[in-house]
Structure formats: C-alpha cells, structure tokens
C-alpha cells in the first residue's frame, strides 16, 4: 500500500476534486493493498448525512451511505421493491454487506483477475498497456458490450436490481444532477478505465426509485458456488400480468457486460403477450443477438438464455413444457 493522505468530509463541499472517496471500503482497500489503485488522498464521507431511506415522489430515496444490509432489511424495500432486497442478499457476505454502502456499491470495480494482477497488462488499470485477459482465463468475462480493449464485467448485484427498477442516481458537486442508472455506467469502448459518468469532485448522494410497480419480482443469480461468489449471470426481473398478458416487463442482467445490462427490445416483445416458451425464446434471441464470446466464457450465452427462460417462466407462472 502506498502512503496516502486521509481526509474526513463534513459536507459534500469538503470533497476535493482530486481525492478518492472512501465509504465502506470493501473493494477500495483491497485494491489499494495491491496498488491497483493508489490514490494520493482518501476522503472519508461516512460522516455525511446520507444514510436515510425515505419517501420520495411516490417512490423512495436511498441515501448513498445506507449499508447494503440495512437496505436489504428495510421493510418498505422488502414490500415494494423485493427484487432489490433479494439482489443485495445474493451478493458478498454478511460481513461485507454490513460495511458496503449504496453509493460505493455502484462504484465497485470489476473482478477481472488480470485487472487485480499488476504483473499483467490491463487497459482498465493502466490505459494503453493491453488486455492480458484476452487469451487468458476468462470464465467471468463479458458477452455483451465488450470491446477489443477490455472484456471485463461489472460484478455487482444491487445495481442490476436498481436498473430493473428504473433507479436514478443523485449526484452532488459543482453542478448537482440526476442520472438514470441506465446511463451511469459506461461500456469500455476505447476507454475502459472510464467506468462511470461521475466526474472529479462529484459525489453520489443517493439513489431514487420511482413509485412501486408491483408485479412479480425475481433476482436469479447463477454462480460457481451457492454463496459468496460473483455471478456467472444474474437476472433482475419485474413482471406484471394483467388479464393473462404481460403488462410490465423490466429485465436487467448482471455478470455479462461492463455495466448492468438492459435491452428494451427484449422487454418490448413481451408486452401485451401471453406467456409462452416461444415468446420467451424470442426475447432471449433478441437479448443475445449481439452476444459475443470466445474461450472460457462462451457458456454464458446458453446459460443466460436458459436462466432467462427459467426466470420468465417462474415470474409468469408458466408451467414448463420442456
């Protein structure tokens, strides 16, 4: 670990533009020990008044410092946004969830092993050095939205559920703004080291959720062991049925891209239709049309298809025909 300056912020205005923000530190401290991240200054924002969950325009506002464990256990979240609670509880471990915060969780870095290993070339860690993952062990890598510069995935669960719930990220800074979560994370393109739209000096203060849409909510995470493992693929699904037809379909996918993935076309094809395996296969076809994989993670394409089909059957109550 490199020496760094530690600052404590008492207000958002205290956060200097060049400082790296620390809240729960569950990912940042690991990265600093390995010197994958080596900030000169850390600013601790845990004293800020950002740890409330409160009503907001018919929906909910979640402070950036609300801990994952508190958010998962919140009675309103469990009642109105169960997919969020389930996603949180599918992530990390009890100890980590006790520390990890809502804002920090949005900012977590990829788990690509080549990103964590400074012996290896990584465009995300050291822009322009190359991507050692390609040609290496790629079990956890992206099938959607990757570039030849980077095939890493965003590893989180919470954000996948938030995306399916149409969450909006509240950002404070020189010019306070709100960014839909769908636009918050960036695909790698030519600049895989730029992962979000957050600018220096900006601070995530909270996340808002629109009024609850009800319906059946599922978070389905497939991984290499039953707990404490990152998703091979995950799906957050919010499905509402009216008179036997699908009237609301929000589907977000984790473990498959550098950001939580959503495909409006795959959702649109479901709307106004009666659930059937053929319909679900059609949605899967649309979702996976742009999917690309080589080597170890090619299995994610059939796995995502199967998991989507199973999730939709489950959420719509369709009995399996296969």
């Amino acid at each position, binding site marked *: *670990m490199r020496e760094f300056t530690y600052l404590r912020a008492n207000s958002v205005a205290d956060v200097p533009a060049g400082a790296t923000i620390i809240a729960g530190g569950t990912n940042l401290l690991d990265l600093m020990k390995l*010197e994958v991240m080596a900030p000169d200054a850390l600013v601790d924002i845990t004293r800020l008044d950002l740890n409330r969950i409160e009503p907001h325009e018919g929906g909910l506002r979640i402070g950036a410092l609300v801990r994952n464990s508190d958010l998962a256990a919140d009675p309103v979240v469990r009642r109105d946004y169960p997919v969020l609670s389930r996603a949180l509880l599918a992530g990390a471990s009890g100890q980590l969830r006790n520390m990890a915060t809502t804002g920090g969780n949005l900012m977590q870095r990829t788990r690509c092993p080549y990103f964590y290993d400074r012996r290896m070339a990584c465009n995300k860690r050291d822009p322009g050095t190359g991507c050692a993952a390609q*040609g*290496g062990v790629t079990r956890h890598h992206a099938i959607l939205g990757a570039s030849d510069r980077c095939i890493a995935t965003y590893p989180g669960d919470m954000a996948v559920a938030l995306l399916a719930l149409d969450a909006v990220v509240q950002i404070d800074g020189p010019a306070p703004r709100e960014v839909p979560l769908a636009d918050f994370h960036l695909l790698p393109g030519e600049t895989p080291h730029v992962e979000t739209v957050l600018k220096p000096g900006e601070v995530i203060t909270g996340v808002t959720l629109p009024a609850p849409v009800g319906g059946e909510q599922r978070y389905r995470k497939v991984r*290499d*062991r039953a707990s404490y493992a990152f998703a091979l693929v995950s799906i957050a699904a919010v499905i509402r049925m009216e008179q036997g037809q699908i009237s609301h379909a929000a589907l977000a996918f984790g473990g498959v891209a550098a950001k939580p993935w959503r495909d409006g076309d795959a959702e649109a094809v479901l709307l106004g239709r009666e659930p059937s395996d053929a319909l679900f296969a059609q949605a899967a076809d649309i979702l996976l049309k742009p999917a690309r994989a080589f080597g170890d993670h090619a299995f994610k394409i059939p796995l995502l298809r199967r998991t989507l089909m*199973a999730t939709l059957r489950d959420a719509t109550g369709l009995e399996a025909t296969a």
Partner: protein
Amino acid sequence: MTLTRHLRVDGPNHDDRLDLMAQGVLGQPLNRLEGPLKVTGRATYAAEARPRNMAYGVLVQATVPAGKVLEIGDAPGALAVIQDKRMVRYAAQGMDEKGPTSGPDRIEYMGQSIALVVAESFEAARHAAQNIAVRYKSEDVPVLPDAVAPELPPKKQSAVGDVDKAMRDAAVTLDQVWHTPSQMSAAMEPHAAIAEWDGDQVTIRAALQMLSSNRKQMADALGIKEKNLRLLAPYVGGGFGSKLGINAEAVAAAIAAKQLGRPVMVAMTRQQVFDLAHRRSETRQRIRLALDGDGRLTGIGHDVLVSNLPSSEFTEPVAQATPFTYQAAQRQVVHAVARIHRGCAGSVRAPGEAVGVTVFECAMDELAEAAGIDPVELRLRNIPDVEPTTERPFSSHMLAEALQEGARLFGWSGRKSVGQRVEGEWMIGMGMAAAVRVNMLIESRARVTLLQDGHAIVETDMTDIGTGTYTILGQLAAEMLGLPAERVEVRLGDTDFPPASGSGGSFGAASSGNSVYLACEEIRSQIATVMGCNEADLTLQDGVARAGNVSRPLSELITGQVTADGHLQPGKTEKSHRQATWGSHWAEVAVNRWTGEVRVRRMMGVFACGRVLNEKTARSQCLGGMSFGIGIALTEAMEHDPRDGHAVSRDLAEYHVPTHADVPALEVHFLPERDAYVGPLQAKGLGELGICGAGAAVLNAIHNACGVRVRDLPATPDKIIAGLGG
C-alpha cells in the same frame, strides 16, 4: 533419570488395554481444550507475536515464468533488500530431511520468491516489494501438461497380467478419461514466520505442521546446526498439507533477522499463498475396467498424468489406493509426470486418494450402470480377501460393513432410476462411493510428567493444526493415568519437546497418541512397582490407584513427580499387512434443470478408523473432509494462465472452497473397530478419509438426478447445462 518406553510395532496388539482403563474419558466428545483461546483471540498464531524492535519483510516475486534474475533495484524507504543464495524457491515436501531447492536468482515459475524487502512496517515493505525493479533474462518454458512428453518414473509403474486382454474378453467394459484441476490448500492462516536470533541461536515462530522434520529442513537451508534452532508453532490456523515443509517466508525471516540484528517477521499475503504454497497437481486419469458376466472385475487400468516442476521429486500419488481397493487378476497403473512450470506441486489434503479414489469411484458408478448392477452390490462383489498382487492380509477391512450399513442408514433402496425424481425445477438424485485411504504410522516421541498433586503434563513437538491434538493427547494421558481430563496440561509445538510425527498424512493422532500411551504405560509401571502389583493389575481412576483390595491416592505414591518418555516406531506390520481405513459416502443432490446449479441436499459418511479417540473431534475431521469432497466435486479449481502458468485465482473470493450454503447438515457414523496391527492405541488415521471418494458420491448423484456425467471437474453449471441439452 527419565525412562523411555520404546515400542516398535512388529506384531499385533490384541489386548485392548485402553478398553480396560477405568477413567472413561477416552473417546468422549470433549470440546477442544484450546477452543476458548482461539475464539477469544488469545491463541497467538505465528504472525501474532510482537518481539521488541521487530522489522517486517515481504517477499519479492518473479514476474516471469522462468529464467534468471540479473539485477534487483533499490527499494527507497526500505531497511534492506536481501538476496541470499540460501533463500528457497519453493516449500520443502513433507518429511524431507533437507531444505528445499535454494538459489532464488534462478526462476522456475511465475510468482517464485526471488528476494526479501525489509522495512519498518508491513505496508512499507509490501509497497517496496511490489514496486521494486527487477531485470530478468527470461526463458520460454512449457506450462501446459499436454505440451511436453511426460516422464514415466520406473518405480511408479506397475502391471500384473494383461489389462488389454481383460478388456477384450470382458462382458462389460468402461474406458473413460477424467480431468481434475489444480487445487489449493487454502488454510485460513496465511504462511508466516518471525525469526529472532540470540548469538548463534535462532528461534522461529512459524506456521508449520511437522516441527521435527521442519527443524532439519530449516537447519539445512540456513547452514546451521539443528541444536541452534528452535521452532515454535503452538497454534496453527489450518495446514491441509501446505505447512508440511518449510517455505520461503521462514527461511527469509531467519536470514533477514540475522543480517539486520533484530527480529523479522515475514508473512505471506493471501495472493502469495496461492503462488507459493504447494498446489495439488491437476490430473488426467484414464480408467479402464473389465467386468465378467458375474459382476466380477477381471481387469483394472488406471493411467495417470500429473505435473510438477522439473526440480521437484514429489508427484501426486493418484493411484495409491488402486492396487488394493478392488480385486482383479489383470491390473495396471501407469503414472506419468509432465515437467512443467506451474507453481510447485505437493501434498494437499489426502494426496493421491482425494482425487484418485474420487475418479475411480465415478468409474465404478459408470460400470455399475453399464452392467445393470446396483453400485453398492458391484463394490461388494469385488472386495478382495487379501491385498491383490502382494497377497498380504489386510490389518482390518471394513469396506463391506461400511457399504451395507451406509445403504441402510441412507435409505439407498429408495433410489430412483436416472431422471425419475423431479421437484419443480430441480431434479433429485442419489449417489454413493467407497472411501479408502492408506494408513501410516510415523516415529514419534512424547514426555509425560505426573505430579504429586494429581496433575499431569504432556510435552511433545507435535502440532495441533486445528484437528484436536491438544484434546486427544490430554484425554489419552487422563485415561491411562486415571485423571479427570482437566487435570492434564498438554504442551505442543516446540522443538524443545521430544520430536513427534507432526501433523500430516492422517498419521498424527495415532503416531503421537501411541507415544503418549507408552510414556503413560511407563509411569503406570513405576506406580505399580510402588503398589507392589503388576502394571496390568493396576487400576487408576480419579487420582486413586487400586490393586486387588489395596487403594491409595496417587499423592501418597509419588514423591515430587514421575516423568517418562514414550517412543513409538513403525515396525514389521507396515510390511506384513496392508493398512488402510475404509468407509462409504452417500449423497443426495438437486440439479436445476435450467441453470445447471447443483445443491447437495443430504450427505452421509460411514467410516471405520480403528479406535475413535474423541467422538467430536473425529466427527469434525470427517465433516471437513466431506465438505472438501463437495469442493472437489462442485467448486474448487485453481486456474492457471495458459501462457505463463501463473495462478489466476489468488484469493478466497475467487478460489471457491465450499461455503456453508454449499454444505448441508452432514451425517457421520463410525463403525466400531480395533485394528491390532497399528500399535496399542488400535487407532488409525482419520483426517483424510472423509475426503477420499466423497466427491464421487456427489458426482454420481448428479448423474442419477439428471443423466449427466461430468468428467472434467468441478461440476460447475456450465458443464451441467452442456450435458443437459435443450
């Protein structure tokens, strides 16, 4: 003068002495003596001592897979950058008497230790070690097992008759290939050492499993006399084989402490453990089985490919149990070794059987299916009367009982045919496997002192790596000397005490236990002399000695204290009898028909290991073994980069040992047994039996659930859905 009672195990021991003792504490499920210390943080592990003025060292690691170090740069802010030709490239193998290969400027694998940076803080040392400039002359080397022509060490091949012919003549055959990946010990406590010199005497606190051989290795590595070296390892946070031999951190700590004239700690980071601790070699195993029309095996072929560095002698003994588990007239073991440049391979929990029996028992399941014979019945029909080939008798043999009792307890008769049991998305299946592990005794010494006040002290350099050694040695002494268990203090993990077997190969409890037994037997003889009776006629219970109608408290019989040493040596029974432990594994799993996820719903093991010394610690050993069996079957894989061989999964988030959610409530049953050929304790090794074959029960259950055979372990969801289709 301290008398020593020696015993070489040259013959059987049928007198069941321990069953005749009166205290009634041996075998009881006592809690671990050191448990409260561990859960309250008072047990000091290797890296937790803080001698005054201690400096911190961090190993510098090679960033190329092979070649030579030409130059190592400066480390600003560090106290020293130490390159010493005595520093070692990898760990010693268990029971080596010499230090491991030294000369760190020669690089054999990516991540090898090449130097040590010492600083005033761990953080500063780590920063310097991670950023130091190193110039290499690097070399291209093979890192894939298939990339080289393998060696066939002559002593490791065996053949009787003609397996090819048996295959041609058989009614039913099986010929398949399995792959298992590299696996890592993944002990909770990372490897660490603190070295402190006093003149030419050095004391090293270390995370080690076998102090007496570790002392030899360390003295050899450092070029000092053994008598000038003291090793301390009173508490060890898990070993699983990775602490059998000394490793780079302990050697470097001693060298640095001498050079700097102050204590030095070297602790590995978690990532370094994955680079520097021994891995279990990946294996490729081809199994050929030939069966006649009566369900009897006529041919067994087990062709194995493992790997290791060119300079290491160890090769994973995959087929170790194959020659004696099942009968067949024609048999062949081929043991091939690929010399490649991945991290050094060595002993990891049950080397050999953990992966060898697991794969073999999968093959037996496939054969049973092909032959239309129940898998339990197929095994029962093929249990040999004596060890095949050598025709040695077995010291004891409980496989048939373990199979029959297991089938009854698990409800095996309720098993459905493949794919017939479905609950919603989940397909349910049952599987079983035999468990077998070779048994070993290792020379061991212990000292026991009985004090006039009715307390006893046991001293030996034996270790307790979380297995319960403190507790069982205390129970043994309490039983033999007729004392309540809490009256016995057990002191371990210090080379100032008599040298013991150490913890490894499941031999620790029986080997060190026999030495404690012998020391106590000597003390009993001395008490008997005072009592005027034969030792055999002496009863000791609750601090009182009885013989005939004479009854006297120990305090009257002892002046001051009585001390005796026990010395156990393996003897002729090692050769005269095939010694092994036996058992059976049973699993019920659910396989998700869409996602391929596997959940173990029920798992049971039935084991026979001779005398059980403590029901609770014995059971815990089996729980651990079975859990790691789930790991072998479902989760554990240490991936290597295909270009440079480096370990890609280097922490406990990425290397998947089973979590609680992966392990259901496990059921363990012990079959009563006394093995007469393994010393007066009549106890055999247990630590590793629980893993041997456990994974096969899970894999066989997967097949019963959904019809998929996964032969490339572990059975992760991608491999299941590839087999499910649709």
